[in-house]
């Protein structure tokens, strides 16, 4: 690819030192996001989705640390920046939306003040210009009577409304990338639909790319252009969303898709992946999925597969090794 990607993550490894040795929570994670694109990141709890997001926005909690690899935003490395420089990028160039809107908002300030503060910090605007922009932003998220609501405190909003405020906050300084970590998980289905719709619409209008982290395949299917599937700290498959859903190449992706109950048609039994994801202390050698895999070959227990072309997607699975097939 000659074009510079908006975001590029190369061989990212995140480690947690512990008494029993160093735990590798992310192991050689690589992917990219181009401008305006929505990349979905799915996986089960503990797969490393949120850690990937936290590494990108520079909010990795110690003792977790980036052990190797690099993160590039428009070609510049951002993973090794000092805190102060990272703070200017966070908010200005990368916005964030988290699962629980209450933790993203300060309960002691009105939402208007929080929005205006973000705007003044990152954009060359006076406080009064920023206040006007805050009202416009709030109105664009579909909050009725934005002019009055701007003076309300977070606790005066409902869960769905708070998440709208957080989205307004993430987009306040016109970032190029929004990292949304489970933005709808805490919300009811009917509200979830509204929020996803809003996130999509606003990011399109502002030209922002989105990294959408979720465990909900339905949300990904509807929203994302491409999807990366994570398992035990690695990306096991990445590709266009419809391909990954309908023609998954990695056995884990296939199992994951089959285990989701759907509304069309009726199956008596769901596809079942026996066992559970390995703990970080006991990642099996070779392919981490091999103990649960129905296609296991001797090679899978010894050699770790890297992402390789597999149909219209790329999958980390020896089944798709060209040398083997040929």
């Amino acid at each position, binding site marked *: 690819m000659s074009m510079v990607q908006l975001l590029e993550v190369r061989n990212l490894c995140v480690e947690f030192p512990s008494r029993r040795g160093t735990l590798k929570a992310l192991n050689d994670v690589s992917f990219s996001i181009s401008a305006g694109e929505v990349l979905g990141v799915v996986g*089960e709890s503990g797969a490393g989705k949120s850690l990937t997001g936290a590494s990108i926005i520079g909010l990795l909690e110690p003792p977790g640390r980036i052990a190797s690899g690099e993160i590039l935003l428009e070609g510049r490395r951002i993973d090794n920046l000092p805190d102060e420089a990272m703070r200017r990028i966070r908010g200005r160039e990368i916005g964030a939306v988290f699962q629980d809107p209450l933790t993203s908002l300060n309960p002691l300030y009105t939402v208007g003040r929080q929005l205006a503060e973000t705007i003044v910090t990152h954009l060359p605007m006076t406080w009064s210009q920023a206040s006007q922009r805050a009202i416009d932003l709030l109105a664009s998220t579909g909050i009725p009577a934005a002019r009055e609501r701007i003076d309300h405190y977070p606790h005066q909003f409902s869960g769905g409304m708070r998440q709208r405020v957080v989205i307004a906050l993430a987009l306040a300084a016109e970032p190029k990338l929004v990292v949304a970590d489970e933005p709808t998980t805490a919300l009811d289905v009917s509200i979830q639909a509204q929020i996803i719709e809003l996130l999509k619409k606003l990011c399109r209008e502002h030209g922002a790319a989105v990294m959408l982290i979720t465990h909900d395949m339905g949300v990904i299917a509807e929203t994302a252009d491409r999807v990366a599937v994570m398992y035990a700290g690695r990306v096991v498959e990445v590709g266009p969303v419809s391909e990954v859903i309908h023609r998954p190449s990695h056995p884990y992706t296939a199992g994951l898709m089959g285990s989701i109950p759907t509304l069309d048609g009726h199956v008596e039994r769901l596809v*079942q992946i026996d066992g559970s994801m390995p703990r970080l202390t006991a990642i099996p050698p070779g392919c981490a999925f091999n103990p649960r895999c129905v296609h296991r070959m001797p090679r899978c227990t010894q050699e770790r597969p890297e992402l390789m072309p597999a149909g219209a997607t790329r999958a980390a699975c020896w089944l798709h090794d060209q040398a083997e097939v040929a």
Partner: protein
Amino acid sequence: MTIPMHTARVADPLVRVEDAARWFDVSPPWLERVISRKPRVDLRAVDGVTFDIGRGETFALVGESGCGKSTVARMLVGLYGLTRGRILFEGQPLDRMTQPGGKAMRSRLQMIFQDPYASLNPRWRVGRIIAEPLKTHTQMTPRERVARVSELLTQVGLDPADQQRFPHQFSGGQRQRISIARALAVQPALLVCDEPTSALDVSVQAQVLNLMKDLQRRLGLTYLFISHNLAVVHHVADRVGVMYLGRIVEVAPRDALFAQPRHPYTRMLLEAIPDMHGNGKARTRVAGEVPNPLNPPSGCTFHPRCPHANARCKSEEPKALAAGLSVVTCHAIEEGRIS
């Protein structure tokens, strides 16, 4: 229409719920009430629900948070008393359970909770957790109990040797299996499952749902399945009740409900689910949010969000009526404004 005779009722039901209600007193303290002249306040968590659960079937209750579905579950196992109405279990009123000789009834009703981390005592070994109901309800000797626990663990796909371990040594899915084993220990007829898989990952959820189906077939169990996830409900349920603000707005057999939802709220819920197989249909945006249950809207509580609401919906509470295979509470359907 007087009594809805279709799918809300079944012949010879295992459970019959008639106009059951549960209100919670959330008034401010007495002194504050007197000083600032505030009235008593009741939160009507469940306000008159009626349904039957047939023997061997899976009846599901769906709805958004705060609609009262978990309260119904707790009423059914006797954890909450009734403010109004009654619940019959195998023809006997449920309050018989707390009276002398009611122990037998309690063992027929068991419950599985949502959070497998909170519902198992962390300081007890698994063997003791599962044996506890046996101690209460049977005259088994300790040796018989150990044998029964082994049998139960095998039944839910765990190893009999797991008796010696503590809950924290298990994953979320395995803990939910332990909860199921505990519930099955006394051979209940009805299992009340309150969001049994919501805390689990999808692949683990599939394991637990498959297990629950197998057990139902093998042991002839009846399930009341509470969930907010319509896809899961579609997978497990035989009949479905849809709840909104403490009431059931629609009861229908599963296929009828998903093929032809009638109540505007049911339609809205179904349209709100993201479609995994992207057939290109745009989701209809759902307007508004669930109102505050302390101050529910007048008339039909759904009217502020309903696209078909008229003056009557704002003032008059709708009654249950049969429409096709469904029982619906909606004026618009009664008047033929929507089908």
